[in-house]
């Protein structure tokens, strides 16, 4: 008998103690099984449901860009995944999933460049976020494969994807916390029996439920404004979730032995993408009430 873990048994455990646990085996399964093709073969709503479900598990897999952004940009072609969505205006900065990506969609504003990533193109960046962040070591070729006039479409579906991912991760973090506060006792009674805790957890639950419906509607309608609304809603609420969920998990929640950070630091990473809540809110204002300086008014 060997009482210590064998090497192959030890890998998942050690990764769980990291800030991010990218599950490459599960990623392969998702890609090979065809699940990530749901938007092409069924509809974007099916893909959004998949994204939300995948975001509920502690390990991270790249689903949002492959399942929602790629089909919108390349309906007849399946680019090699995992895929990173990259803001062209911040090309030199670290981006989510870039450390493991085989393809990057670089949103240049007007157009989108599709970049194949080879070994050595990208370096991993250490971060508290629960995604494999990476940045380009050398400037990618943004001219070889360009999808013209696709910038707005990419932003729209990046928003749907982040909202769906938020919905799943937030719900999982809330479920995890609810379980914890039922079991953990303080002052002789469960933490979850205190009204101050209960009310705030309900408000967290409201955020997750609203996020879920908004994300799904945005996937269903394919309407840019619905995507703005979904992103704005989730991104403006990250701070509240972060504070409350970590507060209720107490000191355990600041260790990486606890699972909480796998979800909460995914939410943090999503908080600023595609312009963040402020950018989405300005886009909503443009869409609903006309651009700044435009006194015309949309019929509601």
């Amino acid at each position, binding site marked *: 008998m060997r009482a210590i873990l064998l090497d192959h048994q030890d890998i998942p455990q050690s990764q769980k103690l990291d800030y991010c646990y990218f599950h490459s085996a599960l990623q392969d399964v998702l890609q090979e099984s065809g699940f990530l093709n749901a938007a092409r073969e069924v509809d974007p709503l099916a893909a959004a449901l998949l994204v939300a479900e995948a975001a509920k598990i502690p390990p991270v897999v790249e689903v949002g860009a492959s399942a929602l952004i790629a089909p919108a940009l390349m309906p007849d072609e399946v680019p090699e995944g995992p895929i990173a969505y990259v803001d062209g205006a911040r090309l030199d900065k670290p981006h989510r999933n870039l450390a493991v990506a085989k393809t990057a969609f670089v949103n240049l504003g007007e157009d989108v460049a599709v970049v194949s990533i080879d070994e050595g193109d990208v370096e991993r960046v250490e971060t508290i976020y629960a995604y494999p962040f990476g940045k380009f070591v050398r400037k990618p070729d943004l001219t070889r494969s360009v999808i013209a006039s696709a910038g707005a479409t990419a932003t729209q579906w990046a928003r749907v994807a982040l909202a769906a991912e938020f919905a799943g991760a937030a719900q999982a973090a809330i479920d995890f916390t609810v379980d914890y506060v039922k079991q953990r006792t303080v002052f002789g009674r*469960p933490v979850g*029996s205190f009204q101050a805790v209960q009310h705030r*957890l*309900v*408000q967290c639950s*409201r955020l997750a439920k609203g*996020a879920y*419906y908004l994300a799904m509607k945005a996937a269903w309608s394919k309407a840019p404004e619905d995507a703005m609304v979904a992103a704005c*809603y989730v991104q403006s609420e990250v701070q509240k979730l972060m504070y409350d969920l970590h507060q209720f998990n107490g000191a355990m929640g600041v260790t990486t032995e606890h699972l909480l950070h796998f979800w909460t630091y995914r939410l943090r990473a999503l908080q600023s993408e595609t312009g963040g809540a402020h950018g989405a809110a*300005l886009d909503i204002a443009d869409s609903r009430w006309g651009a700044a300086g435009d006194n015309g008014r949309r019929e509601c």
Partner: protein
Amino acid sequence: MEFGWPKEHVDYRRRVREAINELLPPDWEETYVRESYASDLQIDFSREFCAALAERGLLTPHWPAEYGGSESEDWQHFILGEEMKAAGEPRGPQYMNVNWIGPALMKYGNDEQREQHLRGIASGKVIWCQGFSEPGAGTDLAALRTKAVRAGDKYIINGSKIWTSYARKADWCFLLARTGEGRKEISVFLLPMNTPGISVSSYPGLPKYGHLNEVYFTDVETPVSGLLGEEGAGWDIVIHALSYERVGVPRYHTGLHALDMAVAALKKEGRFDDPIIRSRAGMIAAQFEGAKLMTYSVVDQRVKKLPPNTDANLSRVAALEAVNELMNFIVEFLPDCLAGGHLLLDDYYRVNVPAGVTGGANEVQLDLVAQRGLGLPRMS
């Protein structure tokens, strides 16, 4: 999951809007909305308006045909509520009649009571008030102290009710009174408001005049036939009746409408180019949209006859948070609206002053979701 409106719902909404446009007088906003939907003026108008709605089949669409309805599903009823609230609720108090008083009578009333009341409610000419809250029993309704004591073939009622909107003009009161010493030994009485011994006094408040009334019952006699259901069955009746109101007022709909008005006012002042104001408005719109979808999910559950859960309470929480953001937005960027500058935004603000209190305090909604929805333990 499917988020579109089928043609029949789109057509129905158009019918409702057409009716509103045709039936409201030209001075509706200036004269009636200024007075509030609980005002005597608007309550009187509701008798005309609801009668005309009834003629068009738009007053009780979700009721069974035998009681004057068209047996349409809850979606139509909900669309109707959205459009009416957005128009300033020209049904006045009668939204209560069709939403839950009528359905309660259908379920718990005897043949005589159903015959007596349901046709009247469906005609749009009868005003009811809700005799629930008391000075010492609001959200904790079972603490009520108004007493009904059996004396032969009648009951003698003594006590008082408070926050009784529409009481001054009501024909009938759906009254809760204690008929035993046990906490939930409560009964429902269908009481004519012109019964001797009933008096009503009104007082001003932050909402507009007409909402805040107190009703006193001094040796009020009512026949046993005025009892709804069995003696002591009042608690179950109320829980059932209010389950029709679980989703409550479509605050997201009136909120988005008010937000549009606020933006229009800011544009008129040339101030809506400010990115901070634009961003805040966009965020509030997103909050209302979230509350809207959560509410729609509850309506859909109801249409599909799924067992009730706490999603309705959660949707109320969501809507209330958005309402508070909008009220704050109005005051921060359009303070003049509450000083004669914008009649409809002033009305929106005032109607929503008690939004977190009426129909069960927000804290109780939070308790219910925490304990029944999330399964968190009750405080021992």
